[in-house]
């Protein structure tokens, strides 16, 4: 489903970023990095309204001709970004949400690992395979 999945630290550096190998990795890095602008915008506007009950899912950050970029932010301000191919029209909002939920769960597992140092790049194999599963489903 996804063509790129990224986890970005609170301080906006990538903790994990993976994209489908068929396309230029660099392009996705740029795309995800740029999407942080919108994420920040959404957080700052939503955050003021109700910091407590803020919805974690940020929705479509911005569409491009080829991709749709969706965002999600955890309560600890870790951002998840999923890039989906625009031609994949069968994908509904609910499916994107469930993908984020899965990602969040897996991320929580990573954080629970006592050997993982928060702030380090994620190298968990379980996380990686979960992301792979997410990306495989598309093709």
């Amino acid at each position, binding site marked *: 489903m996804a063509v790129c999945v990224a986890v970005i*630290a609170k*301080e*906006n*550096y*990538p903790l994990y970023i993976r994209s489908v190998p068929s396309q230029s*990795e*660099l392009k996705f*890095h*740029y795309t995800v*990095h*740029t999407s*942080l*602008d*919108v994420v920040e*915008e959404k957080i700052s506007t939503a955050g003021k309204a109700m910091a407590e009950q803020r919805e974690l899912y940020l929705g479509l950050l*911005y*569409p*491009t*001709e080829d991709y749709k970029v969706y965002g999600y932010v955890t309560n600890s301000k870790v951002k998840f970004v999923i890039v989906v191919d*625009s*031609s994949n*029209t*069968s994908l509904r909002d609910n499916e994107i949400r469930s993908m984020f939920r899965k990602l969040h769960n897996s991320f929580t597992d990573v954080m629970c690992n006592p050997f993982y140092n928060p*702030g*380090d*790049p994620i190298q968990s194999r379980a996380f990686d395979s979960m992301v792979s599963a997410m990306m495989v489903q598309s093709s």
Partner: protein
Amino acid sequence: MEPHEEKPIIYTMENKPIVTCAGDQTLFTALYSMLAQQLPREPMEWRRSYGRAPKMIHLEANFVQFKEELLPKEGNKALLTFPFLHIYWTDCCDTETYKATVKEDMQRWQNVLRLHGSTDWLIVVVESDGKKKNKTNILPRTSIMDKIRNDFCNKQSDRCVALSDPLRDSSRSQESWNSFLTKLRTLLLMSFTKNLGRFEDDMRTLREKRTEPGWSFCDYFMVQEELAFVFEMLQQYEDALVQYDELDALFTQYVLNFGAGDGANWLGSFCQPVRSWNGLLLRRPIDMEKRELIQRGEASLLDLRSYLFSRQCTLLIFLQRPWEVTQRALELLHNCVQELRLLEVSVLQGALDCWVFLSCLEVLHRIEGCCDRSQLEANFSHTVGLWTYATEKLKSLGYMCGLVSENGPNSEELNRTVDLLAGLGAERPETVNSLQSPYKKLKEALSSVEAFEKHYLELSHAALEMYRAIGRLRSARLVGKSLAEFYMRKGDPQTAQTFLLDSLKSYTAEGWSLPVTHTRKQIAQCQKQLQQTEDYLQTSALLASDANLTDEERKHYCQEILTFANQASEDKDQRMALSMSAFAQLRELRFRPATATVHVGASLQLELRLCGLMPVPVRLEQLAASVHFTLEQPGARPGLAGSQRRPGVSPDGTVTFPATSPSYGSPQSSAAPALELYEMQDRSPSDNALNSTGVVCKNVHLLLRGNDSTSSLDTPSASASALTMEDGAQMLKTNDVTLLPGNNSIVFTAPSMKPGTYTLRQLCATVGRVQFVLPHIYPIVQYDVYSQEPQLTIEPFTESLLAGLPQRVKFTIVTGHYTVKKGDALQLSNSPSMPILHSSSCSARILSSTGELVGESALSIQASEKVTSISLPVTPPYHTLEFQLEVLCHIPSSSVRAESERLTNGEIRHRPKSRTRYNSGMASIDQKVSIDCPWSIYSILISLTFYTPFRAKHSLLSAGKRKYIQVCLQNVSDTNFRLANQTLVECQPTPSLELLSLNAKAHQLVYSKQCMYSLWEMKWSSELPPCLQCVFAASFSPAEAPDSALKPYSYEFQLERVSTLYSMKAEIQPAVGEQQCRAGTLCRLEVSITRLTEPSESEREDEEATESESLRTTKLMYEVVDNSSNWAVCGKSSGLVSMPVAAMATHKVQMEVMPLFAGKLPFPSIKVFKYLPHSALPMTQPDTDSCLENDNLSLLDKGLEDQADTASIRSRGSIHSLGSGEQQQPRGVPMPRLEPFSPGQVFNCSLARQVLVLPSTDDHVLEINVT
């Protein structure tokens, strides 16, 4: 206004629902303006079917003359032209006329309506007073109304309305107007509801048929749009928009289904190749051309989408939602591109780019047209997407048409341009006259390289500025990067670089490694073109060490550096200083020796672990570290310098440097330095006592500025200019080192000529003309070179020194800067209490400063009467000389005499501390030794502490008149000893006294922490002296060494008042008539005290006896106490007795006691005290505390758990209070006092006796009183 003759033109804004008017046209014409004005004045609530929310609606109507043609034919679904209400106007007021003409006319009108199935009609009867007056045969108004109602309105009486005096300005006419208008509105709405409902039903039916083969989307489109038009006509834009959105969704779904393989036939017409890409047209409310195309089924996908969007846009703007337009526009454009791809519509390359570009600009123009500047600025976030999209598209067109290359377009590219321009068609009439139309822009941009550049830059900068304005800096930088690429293609690396550096800063700050690498590569290209050699080399170094690049790329950049480095330069001094961080990383620094402290002249090695980041081995001509030297502080104590731990240095002498990646990695590790905390202790300078302690953060300045990301993240290229090699006086250097990729170990020998602190400041690697400089080494790396004074210490060889036995002590001489020459000797002043025992096999070890054994040589010790001289072997400076000597400390004969001073050199000092060692209870003796050293003119005084291995206790035991002395010798040391020859002698022998040993003759072992008891019986013939001075002596030696000589141990003590004065006997007898004592029954306790001896001389003198008449008596106080709660003493438990001072005088006391338990009960204890009458001066303080406390305790116990004789308790209580009162008396006030006998003076015959107590016969009635 004249009623319309022909078919109304559909031009949305002017459309109103049609209402036909029949009957008296002149009458209506007179009322028309009033009516048209009044009708929309008040809103009406429109209740709707299908649960749609009711709405307030202002009704308007287009009144036209009734014609039969206006009525819709069967099957005509047109709604816009549908007459919703038919009104018949008449002002007839006399029956004649009515019957003659009007009724007939109405009949005809009704028939036509009925024929067309229209039930929405209304008859208006206008009355005017003026008209009535003229005619005489006028029927009342009501009658004509009634007639009409009778004739036409069967059951719908509301279909006939009267309007009275409409043109007059009276309250009556106003009232009638109002009711008429209300009626009119209601009927109109009813008609809407009914007719629209029917229409919607039909429409739905049509939609349901969409799976049938002949169904056409275009036909359906027209039907639903009709509905949308009506809603728009009613100004229900929201509802109108819904219709279009539904159509949009329906179409989208068909396209998606087509993609999924489920193609509908009608979709074929939309798949025709795109021939025209002239963009959206949003300036007309309805684009009739496109609408007709759709109506004819000839529209292409882009036509349909464009038309739909233009309608949606119009409605959204009516709804004041321009920002939704921009958002929908972006979605539409993306969607169209995707749909064309999905439907595999053939499109000329670049045509879509043109279409998108034109559409973006068209939308932006439309929005700009309806918003003012401030509104636009506040909503950049909505428009910037379109700007960027347009920019991208123009860029790709530019690349496609060869407008970006330096040489201009080639012929193929020119052909392509011509084709693209052809597809644009002619400019639309709306924009022909405007100078800035999207059409003109695109045409111009594609016409020449210069024009393209102008337009492209204009757009890019607009997007860039907007992004900046709304704070989307990352997006702005991405646009900047794209601009940079453009500038690079245009051959303007200077401008490109500024954009790239800006982007790079943001990527580095946020730690995005791939973008960093990519941007850096572009920068390198710019810098190379600009011939900024230093910057280029610095960037190359970073790229060469960048793990994101392939090996080939890295090698290429590395080679660039090396090539430059090896170029022969005309001026040798001109060296290029680059930051080392990209070239190699300092990982670890290790000192050998690990303490990083050496004495002057010693060798100190520094091992550097450098991690080479270059992809190939690099030969370094020189690797140098500059060192800063600070002179040793004169006040610094040499001893402390070595032991002080340096911050950051681990115990094995390693300084580890935080790993920072030069080009990427999480910005945290490089930006925010780790917290460095140190313990701080403030000691008073005089006695080294701790004043305060705390924790200090040493890098606060770094931590606090950490948040300012721009300053902390100085890119290496930016700071490269600041890299200058310090001209340090001292340098650590190694030449010709090859730095391999990965870890390298390089060893330096550090200079140590002068004492002081050496700080490593910089590191510099030289490769040809290039120097890689590490400007700061952090954490601070220092080593100390010290010069030390010679020092002598004497320590016990074992854990502690035992007195009385030969003990080994270790002499340690740290030579420091002093060289021990031949003939140097230590002079120890001898002391009688601690002789130095010299053995022949005494040798000294010489150790180097690192603890290695250097040599060993024999010591020669010469002792004279006063001094012992130890001649030292020759020892080089900064070495340690160690040897051992045996000393013996005599045990002081008794603890009493331990007070005497024991100083070897005769000086009078404070008395040696006779301390008791914690936990072990060993008495200690401090022994001072005064030593003269060859390096100093002053004597050194060293104190040694010896511990006495034994502790002795004595006690006097009695058996009637016979006396025994027991000595307990406790071994308090950890060693086992062999004891022999225990003797006990008097200091001044009394001839009549004999001490008879009852001890074993053989050697005895006393284990550690155990005691040995010795016993002597005293036998005497004549009277004993009141005081006996005895000396206990024994010999001992360690048990492990049986051969060693026995050492003496002695213990002096004194005994007083040895002989037995009184004997005391207690007897318990059962109650009368009982054989045995029983629990709970009173028994008799008889205490008899007997004086055993004649009063002695001393007693006569010091004892205060009461001479009453002829008989001399002393007063004794007895007390019966039972501490174990076995007995309850009834009645007086204590009392005074007067004893005659004569041998065998006996006094008996009887009292009653009650055993509380059955069994063998021990006797209650009986105490006897001397009772001193108040006249006697207090000599000694009687020790009543313990007894009283015990009493107290037992009292409590009894009170709680036992049946107790209250009397007894009271009496005890009185004793208690007496005792305490006595204590509270100030000294000197004459009060009677108690004085205990010394042990042995009173002999208790019944000590430890027991009596058998049988259980009580009636235990169950035992009463328990608790007081």
